[in-house]
């Protein structure tokens, strides 16, 4: 067996299938997207080569930068929400009653499809018949906000269902990481008289710093390319107030038939994602703690 595995040809043969799949499904489409971005193409007829025109227009497109700003805001909000999840996980992992049951409850939104969640929240946000405004009227608010119809509020109103949707995912990973913190360390700290807040802050959190870092990157990159709920709930409106990069790309490519420009937006989105990921990694580049 050893001699088989040391043969370079055999190794390449084994690697080939997954290499082909990755090339076919990820890298080649990326290159193609960049290439289509050089075209004036409606997706159906003939392509016309126009050089960097789409990319130059993209750089000057205020709508694109506005949507990029919205995506970044979403990233910031998701990162902040991680703090909440971490606290929840710390509580769940500290052997409280019903932790298992609660964990499952938090996971439920993860199991629903985005479209179902969208429909659910559309009903909650409905300006007159919605659960939220009915409640507000009941407790005496005369003119409750119009939520998704108000261009000043819509983006923030959308953040809540998005954050809620992913709560289970982050909580489960934090929870698993916290369960891996050695029991002896906590026992020792307790004997030394540390309070549970001190234990959480000084021992547990530093020990799972690696996981936290990965979660921050996942949250930000996930937010930058976020699409589902925004598409279902507002489609980027009203008047572009909730447009994010992915929804803008969709509108251009599939609704306006500007496939070339849509591809350029997609490529821009990729570059922004790479840059942001790189910056975060630089910022978080601290050594992992190990006791």
């Amino acid at each position, binding site marked *: *067996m050893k*001699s*088989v595995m040391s*043969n370079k040809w*055999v190794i390449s*043969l*084994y690697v*080939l*299938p997954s290499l*082909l*799949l990755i090339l076919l499904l990820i890298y080649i489409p990326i290159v193609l997207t960049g290439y289509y971005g050089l075209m004036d193409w*409606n*997706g*159906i*007829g*003939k392509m016309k080569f126009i050089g960097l025109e789409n990319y130059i227009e993209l750089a000057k497109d205020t709508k694109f930068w506005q949507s990029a700003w919205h995506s970044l805001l979403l990233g910031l909000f998701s990162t902040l929400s991680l703090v909440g999840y971490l606290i929840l996980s710390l509580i769940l992992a500290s052997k409280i009653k019903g932790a298992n049951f609660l964990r499952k409850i938090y996971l439920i939104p993860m199991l629903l499809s985005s479209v179902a969640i969208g429909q659910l929240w*559309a009903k909650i*946000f*409905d*300006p*007159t*018949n919605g659960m939220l405004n009915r409640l507000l009227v009941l407790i005496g608010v005369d003119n409750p906000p*119009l*939520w*998704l*119809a*108000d*261009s000043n509020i*819509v983006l923030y109103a959308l953040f809540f269902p998005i954050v809620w949707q992913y709560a289970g995912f982050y909580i489960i990973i934090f929870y698993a990481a916290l369960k891996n913190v050695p029991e002896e360390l906590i026992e020792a700290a307790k004997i030394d008289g540390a309070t549970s807040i001190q234990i959480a802050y000084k021992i547990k959190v530093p020990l799972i710093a690696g996981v936290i870092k990965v979660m921050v990157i996942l949250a930000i990159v996930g937010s930058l390319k976020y699409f589902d709920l925004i598409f279902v709930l*507002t*489609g980027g*409106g*009203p*008047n*572009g*107030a909730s447009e994010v990069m992915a929804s803008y790309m969709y*509108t251009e490519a*599939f*609704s*306006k*038939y*500007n496939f070339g420009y849509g591809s350029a937006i997609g490529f821009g989105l990729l570059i922004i994602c790479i840059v942001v990921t790189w910056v975060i990694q630089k910022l978080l580049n601290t050594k992992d703690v190990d006791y």
Partner: protein
Amino acid sequence: MFSKKTVAIFMSVIMLLSLALAGCSSSSSSEESSADGKKVIKFMHLWPEGSSNAQFSIVKDVIAEYEKEHTDIKIETEILNPDQYREKLKVLASSNELPDIGMTWSDGFIKPYVEGDMLAPLDDIVENDADLKDAFIPGVKESYAVDGKTYGLPLELNISYIFYNKEIFEKYNLEVPKTFEEYKNVVKTLADNGVVPATVGAKDGWPASFWFMYLADRIGGSTILTDVIKGKEKMDDPAIVKAAEEVQNLVDMGGFVKGSSALSNDDAKGYFMNEQAAMFLTATWELPNYTTSPDVEQEFKDKIGYFKFPTYEGGKGESIDSYVGGPGVGLFVAKDSKVQEEAKDFVGYLVKRWGEKSVIDAGVIPATKVDTASLDLAPMYIEILKDLSEASNVTTYFDTQSSPAVSELHHDLVTALFGKQVTPEDFVKQHKDELADEKK
């Protein structure tokens, strides 16, 4: 050892082969005939059994009939819901694999497909068939024509009316308004009494655009929006600005449901169906809900009436019989189809049978003329079919006539107009710029 190595290589080769084969499987779809020697016509449509049962059944029955009469033909259907259909058709078009027969929308939608040289002209079907020649309602078939050739045969025709709840009108002693001034009084009375005057799904853009298009028609005359698209009139014509202003006047008066710019058409419809709103400007595709649909209670249906969009004092569009409407879907035949002749024959057959069956079975207004005397129809249908025969004009929806890019911008801007995020002046200016961009 050697044998293990051979096994390893053998396994890898099999894996590779299976990958390669999986990649090839789609290319074998251009087969012409099925195993039993019949010619196969591939037909893709957008009426799934679940959501459009009546239409689905008509198509299914017509196919069965046709296959009985033509024993050498087999028609294979692929059915998707409308949104998926739109996407899939585009993907198929970009890889040049359109089905033999498919469905298309008119004007702006069909144009790129024709320009991409993918559809077959269908004029010969109509010319060679005496029953079809005069069957279409004038002007409808032409919506599918590019450079004088028709590439799609329409199945449906929709026109828009204001539907209203008679019970609410009676409660506040309201009469059906004939002029826009009267309409505003109706709105005022309803709003003062805390009733939502009209519901509209402005998030989707197009339902809200009905209001704008009708006002433009009444103020600027029935051809003004069509002329704007053709470049004969300017979008910043004072009449169009005025129409946009009147929309916002209605918004200011509380004439529409609160937060309409976040409501989809279905959300908005809910307000009307639950009798929370007195009026709903929509097209005749909603008719089954007010007449024949078994899912709606008779008590509600009895309360619903309709009226034509009021005329505007001093406006150029003086006729109340001018409608905003448009063809729904039509049928196309792919140019590269290997069974083009057979496909064309079936398209002609389906259009004819559809005209006979659709009103009664599905409650759809067909694009072909209907002999109401011989059919047992709900009164609302008879009235509307009569209106249609007396119509002075049917203007095709602005967003159907314009290119996809203008249409999308129009939807966004109408949403913003209803949400008061743009001024009427800015509304027309942005349209004008995009239209000018297009001409370049």
